[in-house]
């Protein structure tokens, strides 16, 4: 977090998240709950997340299934209301009750692209209408001609042709559909884009095209990204800063190079070890143990302790809090107590 930002005037982050938490109450039968006298089970999808994203940068959020990264995306973008914590955009609280800066005025400035290219477009709408939907909603076009031109321009920007606007989504491949999604997302001139695993469902060569497009658009339009993925190599390629999540909590946040070269949290180290060795160096791997636990019933204390090679008694009992460690932020007792390496 103390990484000096070499950019224009502002050094305050575009997006900041403080103690962000989202709990889901799981309904079990009301009657059986009365009989067994059990409290309503709660799924803590994300718990106490804090990080910042500077303007023009990409923050990569990485983790396995059940870690809550998709929930983070949806809370930030407004699809869920947070249970606790604050979201700040350009330093202002994003809060329904604060009418000076309500969620509504944010809509055009914060957009999202999704993982599934097949479910992210309405199959009954023409592509030009799909892309025009945000423009119409925010009344950004002065006339129908202006709208047409804008849609054509957007299609060109994402590498498609203006005549593609007349077609329907099913006429396109997965990669092309993602381009259409991207065109829709940038049509309202947003500042901030949340990318929820946008290339996970694509073939490798198509993935490369889309990642290049995403990077190019960032350069050209000055976008800021929150990029979510489970693929470490992709996150490495595209991010400036990286956050690692496990069972709803942030384990480690660091600038990319530091995270990948000097990982501190045991889970980060374990994750990096699972990256396939495509250069066939034959490097030694540390054996990985255990499975990701059920998020509804997480382990006590530090959620990673059952799988961690550096567990001690404190880890079983007490949840670690994020603390600075060099240029990284790490939530780990072993790191805090200097017990690692």
């Amino acid at each position, binding site marked *: 977090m103390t990484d000096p930002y070499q950019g224009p005037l502002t050094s305050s982050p575009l997006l900041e998240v403080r103690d962000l938490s989202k709990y889901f109450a799981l309904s079990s039968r009301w009657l059986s709950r009365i009989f067994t006298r059990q409290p309503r089970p709660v799924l803590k999808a994300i718990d106490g997340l804090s990080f910042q994203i500077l303007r023009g940068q990409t923050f990569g959020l990485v983790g396995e299934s059940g870690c809550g990264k998709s929930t983070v995306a949806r809370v930030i973008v407004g699809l869920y209301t947070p249970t606790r914590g604050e979201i700040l955009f350009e330093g202002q609280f994003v809060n329904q009750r604060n009418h000076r800066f309500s969620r509504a005025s944010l809509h055009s400035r914060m957009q999202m692209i*999704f993982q599934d290219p097949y479910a992210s477009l309405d199959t009954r709408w023409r592509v030009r209408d799909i892309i025009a939907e*945000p423009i119409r909603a925010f009344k950004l076009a002065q006339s129908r001609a202006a709208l047409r031109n804008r849609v054509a321009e957007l299609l060109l920007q994402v590498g498609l042709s203006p005549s593609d606007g007349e077609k329907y989504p099913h006429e396109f491949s997965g990669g092309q559909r993602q381009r259409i999604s991207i065109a829709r997302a940038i049509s309202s001139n947003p500042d901030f884009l949340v990318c929820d695993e946008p290339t996970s469902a694509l073939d490798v060569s198509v993935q490369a095209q889309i990642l290049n497009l995403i990077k190019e658009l960032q350069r050209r339009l000055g976008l800021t990204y929150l990029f979510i993925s489970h693929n470490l190599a992709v996150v490495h390629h595209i991010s400036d800063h990286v956050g690692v999540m496990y069972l709803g909590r942030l384990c480690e946040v660091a600038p990319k190079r530091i995270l990948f070269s000097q990982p501190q949290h045991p889970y980060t180290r374990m994750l990096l070890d699972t990256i396939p060795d495509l250069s066939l160096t034959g490097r030694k791997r540390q054996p990985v143990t255990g499975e990701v636990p059920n998020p509804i019933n997480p382990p006590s204390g530090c959620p990673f302790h059952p799988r961690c090679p550096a567990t001690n008694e404190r880890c079983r009992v007490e949840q670690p809090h994020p603390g600075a460690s060099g240029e990284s932020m790490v939530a780990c007792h072993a790191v805090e107590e200097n017990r690692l390496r």
Partner: protein
Amino acid sequence: MTINSTSGRKGGFGHWVRQVADHDVFYSFTRSPVTMLAAFTTFVIVFASIFAPWLTPHDPFNPASLDLMEAFTPPVWVEDGTWKYPLGTDDQGRDILSTIMFGNRISLIVGFFAVLLSMLIGITLGTVSGYVGGWFDVVTMRLADAQLTVPPILIALLVDGVARTTLPRELQEEMAIYVLIFSIGIAAWPQYARVTRSGAMVERNKEYIAAARIIGIHPVRIMLGHIVPNVMGPTLVMATIGVALAIIIEATLSFLGVGVPPTTPSLGTLIRIGNDFLFSGEWWITIFPAVALVVLVLSVNLIGDWLRDTFNPKLR
């Protein structure tokens, strides 16, 4: 997965015809002789009904044109029959053929508009239930469940009866058809609501809906613009079969005497009238309307079956 024929280029009517002819749905249609026959039959019936006032040799609803002397004329191929009344006449001298054509008209009108009403109510309630959920969903679905325990005919009968007692006498004859449409329409909405609701529940979790919500589009616009077009498919198939069912219900109600007024007889009325004379020899008064009813309902049903099979992704 359907193989797309063309991209959406504008190319005029000929292009559109080629697109339709090329489409998989049309292909499966031409491969099914039964369906083609059913469609042809329905088309003939519909055509005849629309142009009935001009096509029929006689006007069965005009009491002045009836001649009691011509009552009980048998069909043309039986002794004593004439070409003037090809299918014979009933007890009041009405030409059976003309009455069947007008009766078809009533059946089709009632069937079509009743289903339209059901769909309107069902799709609206179902979409809101499925998309919004909450107490609205609970209440609507329990209502639907409750109504589904009662057979549609009884519901129609009930609504019809209530209408009769509330409407003043003079209006009853005029309003009969609207009451009929309303009662049959009300009887059938739950199934459309159910189907639409499950479709809406599936669609609302899809990312394109999330994308629309992120831009802040109003839920009503989301439902109308995104959800309804995507969930309507199965209801259209149900609707076709529903028309057949509605026609049967109308015929039943008319047969029971609580449908259309006897001066504007529908197929059901005719069947009832003819029933009294079935065993005294004048069989044609019942049999022909009955056959017409069966043919109409069967044709519509077969089209519905074909539609259902064509659009069933699992069967392809």
